[in-house]
């Protein structure tokens, strides 16, 4: 069920109430049952896939911990990772690989008879497999004790607030929390609810409104040239941010209500002053996952410059592929990797230019330029993320400045100015809580101001929400 659905509106208070009423020893089983019900609301049969990965990784964790022999420990780790990745690869990438092999075979005039399969991607697969892999790797590294309680481990993988779209948790952060006793605390509960309300506002008011503009253009690309393409791309930048961070706020808020602390996933990414800074602020749970389990094991920064760039590029390539089985995502990942490499290469040149212009003496102007430049680069990459195909992405790229004012555009284009107001409101809330405090919005403000903000949030959400239940973007990954 979606977070912005009537079903969740009924599910959440029921589960939370039962959670606080249940004896502490039973709570894990209640949450596990609720998480199963939550997941099965999508496609019931796919819980079996989840069960397989849970059993394999649960067993692997215990075997790794029990086994002193290094080779056997590594074997268990490899088997666990191979099984988990194989499940992910089959459901997510089989058709992509198959289609590309078929095209290649056709180009080489070879016979190739394997048909693509009608596979529905299990929801949340990319997220919970990564979370499972993180557990096994941390046990292998000795950073985490293997979880002996099967139910608690299953709950770690299936915890419903973060099951379908993260944040991708680490066992050190989450596992022990399932053994803590959480009591009803008014400040914590109300803070969680406020965070959920804010997330809902981002999703149903901003993201879904922007989606209509983006879809209007990106689903009819050849009717547009010039500025509508640029505006639709910038709208997508904000749509995906509000959609995903809104989801994350609801996830973190709902977990907070019950007393759980999940990791933050976003830190005002469009305030980033470089692409590297952007990736320290965007989807932080995934970025740190790739850093800790792909980039650093490959050598990270402790290798030659060339190898470092190769590691960086490869990591972003894989990250792009993680997002979807399409060359557009691969190119998106590659672009971001290229940005980081070029940024590193050109750092001395850019510093020299800044010094020559003398802009370092005007930090606000300098920072503003950096933020705008970073936003422009990120938006350019988003073209590939949003476009349905490489051809579509290239159309956007080649027509972005073609007849810039769009005099020859044939498609209609309408932008509601209220969305800008709502985005500014959202950014104001983030600014006020830039040093933390998202867990209890405006808690340190005067009551009159605080309640005025809550009133504005509630009224705007009721009046401007999209009630037609648009899915969260990251559910498709």
């Amino acid at each position, binding site marked *: 069920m979606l977070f912005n659905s009537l079903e969740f509106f009924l599910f959440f208070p029921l589960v939370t109430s039962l959670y606080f009423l249940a004896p502490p020893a039973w709570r894990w089983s209640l949450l596990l049952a609720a998480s199963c019900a939550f997941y099965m609301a999508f496609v019931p049969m796919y819980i079996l896939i989840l069960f397989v990965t849970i059993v394999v990784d649960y067993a692997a964790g215990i075997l790794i911990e029990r086994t002193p022999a290094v080779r056997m420990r590594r074997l268990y780790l490899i088997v666990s990772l191979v099984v988990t990745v194989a499940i992910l690869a089959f459901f997510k990438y089989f058709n992509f690989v198959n289609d590309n092999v078929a095209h290649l075979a056709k180009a080489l005039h070879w016979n190739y008879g394997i048909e693509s399969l009608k596979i529905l991607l299990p929801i949340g697969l990319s997220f919970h497999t990564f979370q499972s892999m993180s557990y096994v790797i941390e046990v292998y590294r000795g950073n985490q004790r293997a979880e002996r309680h099967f139910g608690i481990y299953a709950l770690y993988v299936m915890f419903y607030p973060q099951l379908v779209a993260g944040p991708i948790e680490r066992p050190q952060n989450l596992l022990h929390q399932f053994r803590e006793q959480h009591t009803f605390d008014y400040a914590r509960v109300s803070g969680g609810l406020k965070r959920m309300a804010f997330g809902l506002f981002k999703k149903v008011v901003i993201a879904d409104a922007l989606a209509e503009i983006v879809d209007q253009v990106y689903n009819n690309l050849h009717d547009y040239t010039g500025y509508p393409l640029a505006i639709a791309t910038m709208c997508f930048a904000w749509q995906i941010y509000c959609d995903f961070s809104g989801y994350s706020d609801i996830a973190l808020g709902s977990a907070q209500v019950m007393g759980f602390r999940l990791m933050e996933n976003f830190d005002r990414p469009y305030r980033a002053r470089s692409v590297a800074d952007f990736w320290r602020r965007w989807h932080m749970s995934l970025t740190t996952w790739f850093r800790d389990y792909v980039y650093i094991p490959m050598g990270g920064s402790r290798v030659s410059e060339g190898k470092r760039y190769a590691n960086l590029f490869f990591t972003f390539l894989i990250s792009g592929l993680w997002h979807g089985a399409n060359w557009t995502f691969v190119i998106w990942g590659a672009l971001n990797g290229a940005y980081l490499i070029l940024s590193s290469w050109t750092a001395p040149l850019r510093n020299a230019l800044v010094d020559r212009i003398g802009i370092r003496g005007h930090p606000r102007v300098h920072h503003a330029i950096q933020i705008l430049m970073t936003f422009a680069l990120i938006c350019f990459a988003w073209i590939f993320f949003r476009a349905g195909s490489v051809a579509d992405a290239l159309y956007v790229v080649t027509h972005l400045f073609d007849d810039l004012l769009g005099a020859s555009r044939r*498609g209609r284009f309408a932008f509601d100015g209220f969305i800008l107001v709502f985005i500014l409101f959202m950014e104001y809330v983030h600014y006020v809580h830039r040093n933390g405090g998202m867990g209890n919005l405006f808690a340190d403000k005067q009551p009159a101001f605080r309640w005025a903000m809550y009133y504005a949030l509630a009224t705007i959400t009721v009046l401007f929400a999209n009630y037609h239940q648009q899915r969260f973007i990251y559910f498709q990954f």
Partner: protein
Amino acid sequence: MLALCVMATLALIYALPVPYSDNLSSIVNKRDLLKDDRQNRVVFVGGSGLFDGLDSGMAENRLHRPVVNMGLYSGFAITPLLLEVEPYLRSGDTVVIVPEYRFVFDTFDVPARKWLFALAPARNLRLYRDMPHGATALLTDVIGLLRSKIQALPKAVRESVRTRSFAPLTGHGYAYFGKYYDRHGDSLRTMRAAVPGVIEQMGLEFFSDAAYRDQSFAAVNAFCLRARQTGVKTIFFFPAFPEVEYLRLKPGMQAYEARLRRELRSPILGTPQDFLYPLSYFTNTVNHINSEARTQRTEKLLQYLEKAL
């Protein structure tokens, strides 16, 4: 407490006499054109094919009768519009029914629903009683109306400051009705083709049985009967349509015409062929004609109406 404040705000916005930003709210203004003392009016009822496809000024000059153009959007369907118009008709009036083929006797669609509610909230609550998830639909429609009021506010405030008058902030219906419509209800803007040479076509599926909607047929006939009893004439015309499309859909078109002639309790003037035009006369859909076709079509309508009235 917060919930109460939000509810009070919504109620206040609903009660405020502020116009709407949505063009479909023009149906309120068009209905208001009937609230006068003029006698022997000719009221055209249809969809967007009449919106900018009728020269009411020409019609008024030729017929020497006041003309009101209720055409706006096919999504209102015919029966609901006739029911909204009915309370304002009087003996001597003539209702000219010109539905597009696509929505012939169909039911209203979702975008139109809230404007039907805005027209007559008490009477049109029945629309929600008869549908699944009616309460949810009513709630979303009411919120949609409120949103449309708020969206009209910035421009209305600017206009109010510019003209130093409260008039732009008050009123009902479409905030820009006076700017984009004439006194008959004709649109002063013409539809533009989104992609030159590409016109949205109509599929064959509309001729399936479901499109005929027996209930709607019965409701239209009931209206025609009541109209006759109160001294109101009703006349049916076929809509403007591309000739090449008519030929493509001919079997369905002919069956539709046969059923109308067999069952409709209203005089049908002319034939579909009277209102077929080259594709180049159409703008963005098979229902929207350009200004040249509008003149020809109005002329043809008047040839029949002058004899009938």
